[in-house]
C-alpha cells in the first residue's frame, strides 16, 4: 500500500515560515512521488486540517513546529519532529525519515489492543455511551475500594470490627467511603454524559437516593438516565430573558432537575426498582447449584463474546454493581471468565505452533501477560483475524470457567487485578478451586482453538490476509 505521510507546520508568528515549510514539504513530496497532506497553523488559523481518519491511516507524521501544533492528536503514531527551519531547509530529508519510520500501530501488539479499545469508545452512541461513561467513572472507585477491603480482610475476616485498627481504617476507606460513592458516581456521570455539567448534581443526588433507598446499582442507573434527561430537558426548553440567562446553569436547572429527579426516585421509581433489586439479590444469595452454574455459564460466555464490548461490559457492570450489595460470587466468575480468552490463546500458541503465524506466536506472549492482568481485550487481535473459529472457542472456555467458579462458590471482593489480587489473603474465597477454574477454562479454550483453527501451511493464501488483519 502507498505510504501516506501527513505533516503539520506551525511557527510563533505564523506569517511566513509556516507556509514556506508547508510548501517545501509539499514540493519535496511531489518530487519523490509521496502522497502528502500538510496542515498549516499560521496566523490565518488552521488550514487544511488533518482529519482523524487521515491521522489513523497515515504511515507517519512530520511535525515541523516551533509552537504548539495539537500534538496530542498523534499519540501512538510515528512522528518525525523538526523545527520549521529544518523543514524549509531539508524537507526531502524529513520525508525520507518519515518513510523510514516503522508504523508503530502495526507492530506493537499492546498498541493494537489500545487502539481497538479506543475505536470502541468512539463508536459508542446514545444510551449505551452514557451508561459506559458512568461505569468508567465508577470503576476506579470499585477497584480502589475493593482492594482496600481486600487488604482489610488480610488481617482476618472480622479484623475490621476492632475499632482503631488498621483493618478498620481500611474498611472505612474501602467499604464505607469508596463503595458508598459507587452508585452516586455511576448515576452522576451517566447524567453528566447526557446533559453535561447541569446533569451532574441531579445525577449524584439521584444516585445517593438509590443507594440509601436500597435500589442499588439498578436504581443508580435509572436515576442517572432520569436526571440526565430531565436536566437536558430544562436546559433545552427553558428560555429566559438575556439578563437572567446567567441564573440558568447555577440556579434554575440544578434546583428543578434535582427536585424532579429526587421526588421521582422517592415516590415513583425507587420502590419498584428496590423490589427488583431485592429480588435479584435474594435470587443470587439463594442460588442452588444448578442455577449457579447456569448464571456462571451465561456471565462467562458474555465476557468472551465481544471481549470488552457492550456485552462484556454489561456482564462486568452487573458483577461490580453487586459488590455494593455484598454479593461476591458473580464478580469472581466474571473476572475468571475475562482472563481465560487471552490466556487460552497464549496456551494455544504454545502447544500448536503450526496453527499460528510467527506474528501471532509473538502476540501470544503479550496476550498471556494481558490475560493474567484480566484484560480480556488482549484476545481481540486473534479474534479479529479469525472470528468464526476463535470467538466460539473463547466463549466455551469462559463459560466453563464462569460455571466452575460459581459451582465452587468462589467469591471475589476486588473487581479487578487478575492474578495479582489472588495473592491478597482473603480477597478471594475458595482460592484454590478458583485458580483451578481459571486453569481449566484456559485449557478448554486452548484445546477448542487449536482443534478449530486450520494449520497455517494448509491455508497459505488466507494466512497472509490473516496476518494483515492482525497487523492492521
Amino acid at each position, binding site marked *: 500500500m502507498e505510504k501516506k505521510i501527513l505533516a503539520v507546520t506551525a511557527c510563533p508568528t505564523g506569517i511566513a515560515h509556516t*507556509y514556506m515549510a508547508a510548501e517545501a514539504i509539499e514540493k519535496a513530496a511531489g518530487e519523490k512521488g509521496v502522497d502528502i497532506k500538510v496542515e498549516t497553523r499560521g*496566523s*490565518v488559523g488552521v488550514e487544511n486540517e488533518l482529519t482523524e481518519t487521515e491521522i489513523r491511516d497515515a504511515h507517519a507524521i512530520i511535525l515541523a513546529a516551533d509552537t504548539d501544533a495539537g500534538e496530542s492528536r498523534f499519540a501512538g503514531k510515528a512522528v518525525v519532529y523538526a523545527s520549521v527551519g529544518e523543514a524549509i531547509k531539508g524537507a526531502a530529508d524529513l520525508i525520507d525519515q518519515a518513510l523510514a519510520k516503522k508504523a508503530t500501530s502495526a507492530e506493537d501488539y499492546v498498541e493494537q489492543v489500545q487502539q481497538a479499545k479506543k475505536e470502541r469508545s468512539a463508536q459508542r452512541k446514545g444510551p449505551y455511551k452514557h451508561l459506559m461513561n458512568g461505569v468508567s467513572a465508577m470503576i476506579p472507585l470499585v477497584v480502589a475500594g475493593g482492594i482496600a477491603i481486600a487488604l482489610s480482610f488480610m488481617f482476618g475476616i472480622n479484623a475490621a470490627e476492632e475499632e482503631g485498627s488498621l483493618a478498620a481504617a481500611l474498611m472505612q476507606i474501602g467499604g464505607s467511603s469508596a463503595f458508598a460513592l459507587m452508585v452516586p458516581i455511576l448515576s452522576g456521570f451517566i447524567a453528566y454524559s447526557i446533559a453535561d455539567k447541569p446533569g451532574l448534581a441531579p445525577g449524584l443526588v439521584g444516585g445517593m437516593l438509590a443507594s440509601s433507598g436500597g435500589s442499588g446499582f439498578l436504581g443508580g442507573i435509572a436515576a442517572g438516565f432520569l436526571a440526565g434527561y430531565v436536566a437536558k430537558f430544562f436546559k433545552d426548553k427553558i428560555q429566559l430573558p438575556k439578563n437572567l440567562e446567567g441564573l440558568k446553569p447555577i440556579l434554575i436547572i440544578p434546583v428543578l432537575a434535582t427536585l424532579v429527579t429526587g421526588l421521582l426516585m422517592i415516590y415513583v421509581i425507587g420502590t419498584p426498582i428496590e423490589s427488583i433489586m431485592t429480588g435479584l439479590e435474594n435470587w443470587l444469595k439463594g442460588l442452588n447449584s444448578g442455577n449457579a452454574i447456569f448464571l456462571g455459564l451465561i456471565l462467562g460466555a458474555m465476557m468472551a463474546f465481544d471481549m470488552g464490548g457492550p456485552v462484556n461490559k454489561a456482564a462486568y457492570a452487573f458483577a461490580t454493581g453487586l459488590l455494593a450489595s455484598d454479593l461476591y460470587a458473580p464478580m469472581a466468575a466474571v473476572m475468571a471468565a475475562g482472563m481465560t480468552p487471552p490466556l487460552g490463546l497464549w496456551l494455544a500458541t504454545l502447544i500448536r505452533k503450526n496453527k499460528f503465524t510467527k506474528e501471532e506466536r509473538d502476540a501470544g506472549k503479550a496476550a498471556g501477560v494481558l490475560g493474567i492482568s484480566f484484560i480480556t481485550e488482549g484476545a481481540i487481535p486473534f479474534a479479529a483475524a479469525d472470528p468464526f473459529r476463535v470467538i466460539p472457542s473463547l466463549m466455551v472456555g469462559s463459560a466453563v470457567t464462569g460455571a466452575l467458579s460459581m459451582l465452587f462458590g468462589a467469591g471475589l471482593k476486588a473487581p479487578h487485578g487478575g492474578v495479582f489480587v489472588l495473592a491478597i489473603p482473603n480477597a478471594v474465597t475458595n482460592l484454590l478451586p478458583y485458580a483451578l477454574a481459571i486453569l481449566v477454562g484456559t485449557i478448554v479454550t486452548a484445546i477448542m482453538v487449536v482443534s478449530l483453527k486450520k494449520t497455517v501451511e494448509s491455508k497459505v493464501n488466507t494466512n497472509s490476509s490473516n496476518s494483515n488483519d492482525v497487523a492492521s
Partner: protein
Amino acid sequence: MALTDLLKTEHVLLDIEAVSKEACIDQLTSAMEQTGVVHDADAYKRAVLKREEEGTTGIGFGVAIPHGKSSGVSQPGLAFARVTSDVDWESLDGTPVRHVFLIAVPEEQAGNEHLQILSQLSRKLMHEDFREKLQSATTIEELIGALE
C-alpha cells in the same frame, strides 16, 4: 486585496546598498513610513527585531523575510529590497542575503486577507524559478509583475 495593494511601487528598492541587516530593515521601514503604512517606525522596528531574536528570518537561497506585527503599523504592507552586496542574516543555510521582503502587519487587524496573500508569497519563495525572477528583474514594474 491583491499583492500589489501591499507592495506599493514606493516600497520596492532595487539594488540598494546596505551594510547590515538592521540598515536594510531601516531603509525598508522608511519606505513604508513615507506611504503611511507605518506611522511609528520605532515601535514597528522593535517588533521586527524582536522577531529576529526569536529566530532568523533568513530562509536560505539568499532570501530573508523579516516581519513584525505592531501597533505602529496603520495598514498591512510589504516592502522589497534587492541589495548589491551580501548582507549577513544568519540564514538557515548560511548563505548571505540579497533579497529582503519586509512585512508589516497592524496589531489589530480585521480580516486576514493580507495574511493569506503573505502566505502565498511565502510559498512562492520556495520555488527556484520565482527567485530567479527576483534576481533578473530590471525595473520595479517587472519585479511587481513577477509577484502577481
